[in-house]
């Protein structure tokens, strides 16, 4: 990029910079002075129905224009049903919200992918699949899981509705510089252990506030070995550690994913883009404000027992005893969590029986996730009485999965095969848990009531979700092999 503005090299004093600092510097419109924030240019603004209506209203009230419709794109995801999408939305408040998005997009000239459109789906699945999410760009969306896009080496931030309006009006955001944290994952994952297990282990290690104020950069051999889908799963949950963003430096895996996608650069543009992308990796010798090291060799399938994503343990472990927790606040949080989850301390995680398995969400709903789960359940029988919902992340993912015959594998198994959307991740559309219902979910949040009032959530990988659907209790593919199931 030509618009690189030299910075004060605030972090290292050596001129050596991390990935996050480079992307930041390349988007500096004005440098803040005397405690004022930097003004950062935004390359891509993603919209959905829930956090945009009040922002459009704000624009209208102040007679402001949408500055860059050509850097803005919208989709319908949070609030939409995943059945009967050719019918009008039954819930009137939801229908109004969707219709409001459609009206706003028409009025302001925003590209919108509506229900029934092949590019409709979860906003964080749509951006990458279109090739709009690219290395070294800045991406924002009124959704905390915008961190997903950092997998490409983009600086991707979840923002609130006031900030959505700010980006609409100015294509910039005033932001304070972040601290940087390296999350180095050494070694190699064993078969049956996935990107989801890495990030659940990271959050359990640093806590839900451990990343506050930081941009996390995931690096190391185990991260390099991951597909783009796996990297997206990891960056997606950076917010669950309290971080503003998570990033992975782009490499050949990134380029191969992007090459040929609808909005990826072509020809000479591709070469120019790759030349820029190649400059992004953290300089050798650059320093981070903090570093965390994880050994992938030791990792096992991971699962949460409590009501925040930091309350996790290896699947081979047990529900912890709050009495063993030293910190008083964490101890009382654990006590509350066990009461809400209706779990007794010391219960082996594998003894926990679930009612529902949810495979979907912006964390794990890409075709690779569906493929991995389908491979486990193929030819197997679903546990009696258990409900399994499979919700592709986008209409395109659904079509790709159907072309591979994955839908038939899920249907033969007894799972429900749904249309694309956020679905049961957030308890806002018709897909919700009943009070007391227990779910193994590939989503990102196990907060109280997150998947429906009174619902109980265990966060798991797609592989654990699949194995659990077979056995009826929290399980990994390792348990299937050992038990010689079916």
């Amino acid at each position, binding site marked *: *990029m*030509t618009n690189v503005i030299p910075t004060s090299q605030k972090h290292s004093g050596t001129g050596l910079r991390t990935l996050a600092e480079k992307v930041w510097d390349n988007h500096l419109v*004005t440098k*803040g002075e005397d*405690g004022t*924030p930097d*003004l950062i240019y935004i*390359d*891509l603004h993603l919209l959905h129905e*829930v*956090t945009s*209506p*009040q922002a459009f*209203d704000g624009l209208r009230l102040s007679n*402001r224009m949408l500055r860059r419709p*050509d850097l803005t794109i919208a989709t319908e995801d*949070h*609030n939409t049903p995943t059945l009967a999408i*050719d019918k009008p939305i039954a819930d009137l408040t*939801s229908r109004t919200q969707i219709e409001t998005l459609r009206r706003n997009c028409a009025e302001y000239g925003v590209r919108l992918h509506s229900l*029934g459109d*092949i590019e409709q789906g979860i906003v964080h699945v749509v951006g990458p699949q279109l*090739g*709009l999410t*690219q290395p070294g760009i800045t991406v924002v969306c*009124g*959704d*905390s899981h915008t961190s997903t896009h950092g997998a490409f080496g983009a600086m991707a931030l979840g*923002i*609130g509705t*006031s900030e959505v309006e*700010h980006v609409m*009006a*100015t*294509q*910039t955001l*005033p932001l304070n510089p972040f601290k940087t944290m390296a999350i180095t994952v050494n070694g190699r994952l064993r078969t049956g252990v996935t990107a989801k297990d890495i990030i659940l282990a990271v959050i359990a290690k640093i806590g*839900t*506030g451990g990343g506050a104020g930081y941009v996390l950069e995931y690096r190391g051999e185990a991260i390099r070995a991951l597909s783009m889908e796996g990297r997206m799963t990891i960056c997606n949950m950076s*917010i669950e550690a309290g971080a*503003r963003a998570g990033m992975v430096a782009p490499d050949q895996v990134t380029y191969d994913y992007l090459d*040929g996608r609808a*909005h990826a650069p072509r020809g000479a543009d*591709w070469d120019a*883009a790759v030349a*820029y992308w190649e400059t992004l990796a953290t300089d050798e010798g650059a320093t981070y404000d903090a570093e965390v090291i994880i050994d992938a060799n030791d990792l096992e399938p991971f699962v949460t027992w409590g009501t*925040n994503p930091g309350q996790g343990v290896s699947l081979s472990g047990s529900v912890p005893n709050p009495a063993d927790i030293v910190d008083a*606040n964490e101890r*009382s949080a654990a006590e*509350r969590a066990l009461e809400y989850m209706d779990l007794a301390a010391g219960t082996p995680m594998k003894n926990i029986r679930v009612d529902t398995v949810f495979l979907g969400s912006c964390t794990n709903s890409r075709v690779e996730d569906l493929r991995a789960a389908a491979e486990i359940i193929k030819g197997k029988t679903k546990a009696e009485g258990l409900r399994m919902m499979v919700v592709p992340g986008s209409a*395109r993912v*659904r*079509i790709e999965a159907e072309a591979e015959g994955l839908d038939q594998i899920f249907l033969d198994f007894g799972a429900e095969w749904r249309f694309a959307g956020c679905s049961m991740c*957030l308890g*806002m559309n018709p897909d919700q848990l009943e009070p007391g219902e227990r779910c193994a979910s590939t989503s990102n*949040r196990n*907060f*109280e*009531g*997150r998947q429906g009032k009174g619902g109980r959530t265990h966060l798991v990988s797609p592989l654990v979700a699949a194995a659990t659907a077979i056995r009826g209790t929290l399980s990994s593919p390792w348990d299937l092999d050992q038990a010689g199931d079916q």
Partner: protein
Amino acid sequence: MQKFTTVTGIAVPLRRSNVDTDQIIPAVYLKRVTRTGFEDALFAAWRLDPDFVINKTEYQGGRVLIAGADFGIGSSREHAVWALRDYGFDVVLSPRFGDIFRGNAGKQGLLAGQISEADAETLWNLAERAPGVELTVDLVGKTVRVGDLTVNFQIDDYTRWRLLEGLDDIGLTLRDEARIKEFEGTRESWLPRTLPALSAGSARVNLQ
């Protein structure tokens, strides 16, 4: 936005950490397209319990919420701030905030002040022993006062200045519009654009 200098109001002790925005306002309330009218949604699930702190008569009309660490983590929903404001809170004090929540608060005239764990404990004890006690939160001096007790809170200088002046962020940024335009002139032509819309194929969704 109204200028914020000092607020005196009833302290509400919320003795919980990790209060995520799904607890502050559950997702079912996010279907509305308005910016106001969310007071009934605040802590909706917890309010079903008659013993929950804001259901108690002595804390009615509370304006200063004292919460545990990691308040406002999780979802970016600004509705969480709107619900707190609509209910009547002007101030939330906590040892640590979710980043996005803290940013949203500053845009809506909700003061999110960071206090130490020890001071949170002191204020909880005070508000529990003397329910209905009023605190004075002074943004100029960055203090919380009650009787002889003074506790300091932290807030970043820029947010504090904007709150004190009641300034609109977008208006401030647009003062730099010439610089934004100049920056746009240097952006590479190959950077992604959403328009014209391109698609990778003509497959159709079978809606059945």
